[in-house]
Structures are given as structure tokens and as C-alpha cells.
């Protein structure tokens, strides 16, 4: 546990919703000390709990999803039955306690529950609230339900991945959800800064689709400026040559690139083929692009006889960009990620040890941490309502008896 005061320890967050795009925001804030309460109900737990593996030992269970836990560490878990009037009252009390509400229901659901921004801002005028969904809260397709893995296709990512003569490619999971959660993370923090300074709250309408397009801004701008329609091009780059992934001797791959003739000369010397750089067919980037197949074959002949690590170390030693294509197993043994403590093991009461993921940034004077494992369903009802909200034991018991913590 971190004993240094954390950057966001004054911030109190309530989350309604589930899956990735909303909860990942709270997880990041929790890593820097915010008190984050993830609201679910027994009837409608976070969809990641039941529908998404991995489960340790491949044994599913409401508290055993590694997918849920990865995006919900450093939080408290409560259950409130929002179908009951008293449940809604309790939710509003929680909002009154909080500085920030994050929700990723379909547009209109929070309003129908009586938990829309206008209502909540009357309870807490300083409140910052973020609503995130596929399309945003307005527009002709605002109510479109959808998964991030498919939305990544609508936003151009899948079409821009793969080889020119082949089909589009998947990017594994809900790639675009994490673009939205990072941009949303910035938006809520900016809202909290203003709220702290002025006492004025904010309502942020975040479309995951639009957030994704900011990662495609370069090709969109190119089209606006020149009419050029970008297409998938494997691992090629218009400027760099060579530029690609090359197979290594043990089934591994290495990515490498040369951004100048000098870098290519260094590469050619390092792979024992210094004459290549003298050859007119490879002397300039344009020539290397024109003779790509021959160039790639010459490089692959050298990489195939070596491990990806050896290739990368050798080329980095002469100033050429290179890195092994790190697999999901390799993420846990990569020395550079290990030096940053990218993975931090915490013990979960039902899942045992799990490596939780730290963000890509850290603060020198107020470092973050994985404050604790992901919560079991409703595990923190007593702590949150008694210790954080200050409710009397008798009141909590009355709610419990009426099934409000359902």
C-alpha cells in the first residue's frame, strides 16, 4: 500500500454501468487515490462478471472474471436495487456524497431512472457527470447499442488493419473503448479542476465513436486536404524502409524500421551485409521501397537465425529502431515493463493472485498504485454506506431488510 498522499485522494466517484469504457475511467482515478464506488445489483451485475472470461482454472463465477477485475481494481463494490424507490433514494444519497458520476448506460436510461444530470445537479450543484456510449447522447443513432470491438470497425480501425489484398482485421477486444476511457479521464479531471475552483459542475457527453476518430485524425485530415483515401497497407510506411515485422528463429517476430539512409547503412553492417547499402537498389528510401521483397528477404535471412531479443539488442546497439513483437505471455517478462512495475499482483478473495495493470504514466512526487483487488459483488456495502456516507447501523439494517442492497 502507498503511504504517500495520493494525487486524487480528495475525489469521490460513483459509477453506474459496466463493461470497459466507463469503469476503466474509475480504475485510473482509483490508482491515484480517488475513492471509487462501482454500483451494480444482484439482478444486473456488471456484464463482464458473467459473460467474459478468463476465469481462473476456467471455472466461471460471479466473482471470478479476470476481465471484470482487470478494469475494476482499486474500487469499492456496492449493490443497489434501482428498481426499488428506496434504491433510487440510496443512489441519490451516494451522488450527494460524490464529486463525479460516470455512467455508460444507453442514452435515456439514467433520466428514466430519475438519475439524469439535471436531477443530480439539483442534489449536488458541484457535481461533474460523464455519460459515455457508442454514439453520444444525441443524433439520429444515439440509441445504438454496441460493442467496442465492432465500433472499432465503424471508426476505421479494422479497415486500416491488414494487407491491401486481404480482409480487414480485428484488433482483439474493444480497442476503441480505451481510447474513450482515456479521453474521458482527461475530461472528468478537467471538470473536477473547474468544479474545485468555481463550485460549478459539468456534464460531459462522450461519444466513443468520436473519441476513436481522434486516433484517426491524421488520415481524416489527409483526406480533407488532398482527397487521398488512406487504405490498409500491411506493415509498410510511406517514409521508412525497411519497416515491418520479421520472423525470428523460435517462432518469434521482431519489428524494425530505418528512417534514414544512415540508419540503413548501420543495419546493413550489423547484419553482416554492408554491401547492401552500397547497392543502388537499396541506397535510398525510394529504392528500398521499390525493391521491398528483396530487401525484406535479405533482412529475414538474418533475423530467422536469431532470437527476437538478440535482433533487437543488436540493432538498438547501432541506433536502429527494433523491438520484439511482445506476446501476451511476453508482457509479463518484458524487462522494461517490469522496471516500470506495469503489473502489480494483488490477492483477490475468490480468484487468488492476479496481476493488475498500472497506467502508462506515473507521478514522481505522488506515485499511483494498485490500491486493492477488484471488489466482489456488493462486498463493500457496509463500509461505503456506514463509513463513507456516515449512515447509522439501524438505517443500513432497515435498507438491508427491505432488500435494497439487492
Amino acid at each position: 500500500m502507498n503511504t504517500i498522499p495520493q494525487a486524487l485522494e480528495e475525489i469521490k466517484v460513483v459509477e453506474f454501468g459496466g463493461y470497459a469504457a466507463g469503469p476503466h475511467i474509475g480504475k485510473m482515478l482509483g490508482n491515484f487515490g480517488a475513492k471509487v464506488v462501482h454500483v451494480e445489483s444482484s439482478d444486473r451485475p456488471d456484464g463482464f462478471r458473467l459473460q467474459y472470461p478468463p476465469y481462473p482454472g476456467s471455472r466461471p463465477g460471479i466473482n471470478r472474471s479476470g476481465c471484470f477485475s482487470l478494469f475494476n481494481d482499486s474500487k469499492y463494490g456496492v449493490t443497489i436495487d434501482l428498481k426499488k424507490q428506496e434504491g433510487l433514494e440510496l443512489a441519490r444519497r451516494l451522488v450527494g456524497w460524490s464529486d463525479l458520476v460516470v455512467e455508460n448506460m444507453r442514452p435515456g436510461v439514467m433520466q428514466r431512472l430519475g438519475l439524469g444530470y439535471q436531477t443530480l445537479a439539483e442534489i449536488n450543484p458541484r457535481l461533474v457527470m460523464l455519460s459515455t456510449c457508442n454514439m453520444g447522447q444525441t443524433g439520429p443513432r444515439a440509441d445504438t447499442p454496441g460493442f467496442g470491438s465492432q465500433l472499432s470497425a465503424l471508426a476505421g480501425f479494422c479497415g486500416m488493419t491488414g494487407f491491401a489484398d486481404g480482409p480487414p482485421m480485428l484488433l482483439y477486444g474493444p480497442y476503441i473503448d480505451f481510447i474513450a476511457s482515456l479521453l474521458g479521464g482527461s475530461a472528468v479531471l478537467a471538470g473536477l479542476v473547474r468544479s474545485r475552483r468555481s463550485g460549478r459542475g459539468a456534464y460531459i457527453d462522450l461519444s466513443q465513436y468520436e473519441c476513436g476518430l481522434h486516433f484517426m485524425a491524421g488520415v481524416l485530415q489527409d483526406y480533407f486536404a488532398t482527397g487521398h483515401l488512406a487504405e490498409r497497407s500491411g506493415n509498410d510506411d510511406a517514409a521508412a524502409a525497411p519497416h515491418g515485422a520479421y520472423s525470428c528463429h523460435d517462432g518469434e517476430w521482431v519489428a524494425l524500421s530505418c528512417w534514414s539512409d544512415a540508419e540503413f547503412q548501420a543495419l546493413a553492417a550489423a547484419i553482416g551485409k554492408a554491401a547492401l547499402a552500397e547497392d543502388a537498389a537499396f541506397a535510398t528510401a525510394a529504392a528500398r521501397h521499390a525493391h521491398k521483397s528483396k530487401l525484406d528477404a535479405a533482412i529475414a535471412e538474418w533475423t530467422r537465425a536469431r532470437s527476437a531479443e538478440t535482433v533487437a539488442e543488436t540493432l538498438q546497439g547501432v541506433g536502429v529502431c527494433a523491438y520484439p513483437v511482445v506476446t501476451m505471455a511476453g508482457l509479463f517478462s518484458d524487462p522494461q515493463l517490469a522496471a516500470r512495475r506495469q503489473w502489480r499482483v494483488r490477492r483477490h478473495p475468490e480468484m487468488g493472485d492476479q496481476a493488475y495493470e498500472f497506467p502508462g504514466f506515473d507521478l514522481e512526487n505522488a506515485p499511483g498504485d494498485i490500491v486493492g483487488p477488484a471488489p466482489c459483488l456488493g462486498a463493500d456495502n457496509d463500509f461505503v454506506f456506514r463509513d463513507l456516507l456516515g449512515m447509522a447501523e439501524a438505517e443500513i439494517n432497515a435498507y438491508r431488510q427491505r432488500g435494497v442492497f439487492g
Partner: protein
Amino acid sequence: MTMLLEGILVVDATDQFGWLAGRILADLGADVVKLDLPGTDRSRPRWRAFNVNKRALDLDPAKPSGRRQLEELLAKADICLLTPISSPQDDSLDADELRRRHPHLIVVVISPFGRVGQRKHWRASDIELMAAGGAMSLAGEPDGAPVRVSEPQAYSWASAQAAVGALTALYRREATGRGDLVDVSAQASVVIAAAHAPAFFDLNGVAPQRAGAFMTGRSITGARYRVFWPCRDGWLNFIFYGGVAGRRTNEQLVAWMGECGAELGPLANIEWQRWDATRTTQAEVDAIEAPVLKFFAGVSKREFLIEAHKREMLGYPVSTVADIITDPQLEARGFFQTLDGERYCGSFAVIDGERPPLRRTAVTSERPPRRAGGRS
């Protein structure tokens, strides 16, 4: 409207590794001054896309006048964004020096591998970072080379994490008055793009692999499901899912095909309430996919988008840039904005009911901004 980061001054001394970080802060209302060496080409589309909404300033810190101008700016600034690899070799933009000279400042350092670890000085461009962060290992054909997204992504992942880091430190400074140093690793920033895939290895020792244009791992029989379907003018992303949402989607697809008089084959007899995607064999998957393959071949991307929305089906077309810029949903929300005759992606969020308008094109260099009030 009062912007969320009204009154916050950001000095943006980044190359492409950090451009989007400054853009995010500018979209939220910060006054972002983009520093470039005199003679920098600001006409490139990528430069313009990521630096719109900032002020542009020609500044050479190697010259005494440039150094003086920089120090004046930093004394007033709240956040300074750096990408040290392309920064000057003197100490004018050295992160530790900046922290010493300007204790109030939040210094954000964005680099390929961060400031710690034995590989902190290793060089990398987008492709090595997408490889180093695991994302590349998950894209491509199972028996082929790993591939990256053809538009650089690692710089944006690093920038997006840097903006969160900068504002985390800014929030802390509101309480303590103290600046900080934010260390951003592009490699570490990319890892989140792999979503929950690392957890399969961590918990069960199984490393997910790239699956090309298909999805595997959903049926205990090992069957693979098609994800990308050729259509009349490109490709669609559609999957036979199970569960409640999948059932509705599958029912609606069959209804749509029926209304169009399409041949249904085995789809006609499936009770979707009882159909279990986790137990279906490859032969069964192939049989139900065959008529759909034929049907989708005659459907356009826009037609699919409209029908899927109308019928509450899961699935989206595989958009090209041309599809995206004509999408009525984006039009209705005013996502693309025109400034000085050029179109750009607008601010990334709608705040208090309004998308903050883009304020400046950052094309021509100007004098450093004078701020009324704020830090002195």
C-alpha cells in the same frame, strides 16, 4: 461558455509522440502554446490535425532571445509537455532542470520507454511500440505476420495517457500548490489496447493469438466465426453472438433476409432462444453463415448501418475515411468543424450541452500570449 481548463497555460514542446496530449488539453479549454523551431513545416495534414486549437510559436532555445522568451513563458505556464528525444541537447528543456527552475510547473515527459529501466534510451517508432506493447501480436492472420494499424497509433496512446497524467498532477497542485513530473512510457501506454487479453495468460497460462478476420475461442468445439463479410461496396463487421443481445440480432437478421426474399437455408429452422454459440460445431457455423454471406454480398455499407440501427442489431460496417466524413450521426452532432476554410475533427467531447468550438488553426506563428490574471 466557461471552458473547463480556462486560465490554464500549457507549453507544448512535443514532436509527434506528444501532439495529441496538447490537443486534448486545448479541446478542454487550456491555452496551449505549440513551440516549433523556425522553419518547421506546418502544412502536413498530420501536423495540422493534432495541433489545431493551439497557438503556434516559432522559438529557437539555442538563441539568447529564444531562451529568454521560453523562460518567460515557462514562468507563467501550468503544464509543460516534452518529448525529450527531439528536444534541444542543452538544458533549456531538460525535465529535471525545468522542475528545479519552476517548482510550480507540471512537467510531462513522453518518451518511447519512459524514464526508468535498462531500455529507457532505446529508440522506437510506432511499429516498434505497437510491437513492444503487445498490440501487434494480436492483429494479423494466425499463420502470418503480426500487423500494426496502418495509421500510427502508439503516439496517440502515449499522448492520451499523458493528458490524464498531466491533469492528475494539476488536480493535486490545486490542493498542494506543488508541481510534479509525469513520466509517460509509450510502450506501457499501448498495453491497454490489448484489453483483457493479458489476463488469459496471467490467470490460466494461455496466451491469446491473432485470429485474422475470424473469431475463435467462443465455442468449446473450437469453431471459428466469421467477423468480416464482403458486401456490395466493401466489408461489414457482424458476428453470430449468443446471449440476449445476440439473440435479438440473429432474429432480426433472419427477419430482414426474409423480407428481402433471401434464401434462408438452415437459418429458417433455428430457434434462437435455444441456440448456443458456445456449443456449435464448425459444420453448423459454416451452414448458417453460407446464406448470410450471399445476402450481405448484395447489401451496401450504409444500408446495413441504417437497418442494423432500425432493428437494434449488433454490427457495424467497416468504414473508410470517406464513409466516416459523410456519416449523418457525426453531422448531426457537429463533430467536424470548419476553421479558416479547412475541416478538422472538432473537440472530442460535448460539454454542458455544447461542443467547444475550435478556436485557432495554429498555422501561423504568433507572439507569446499575454494572459489577463492567472499565475504571475
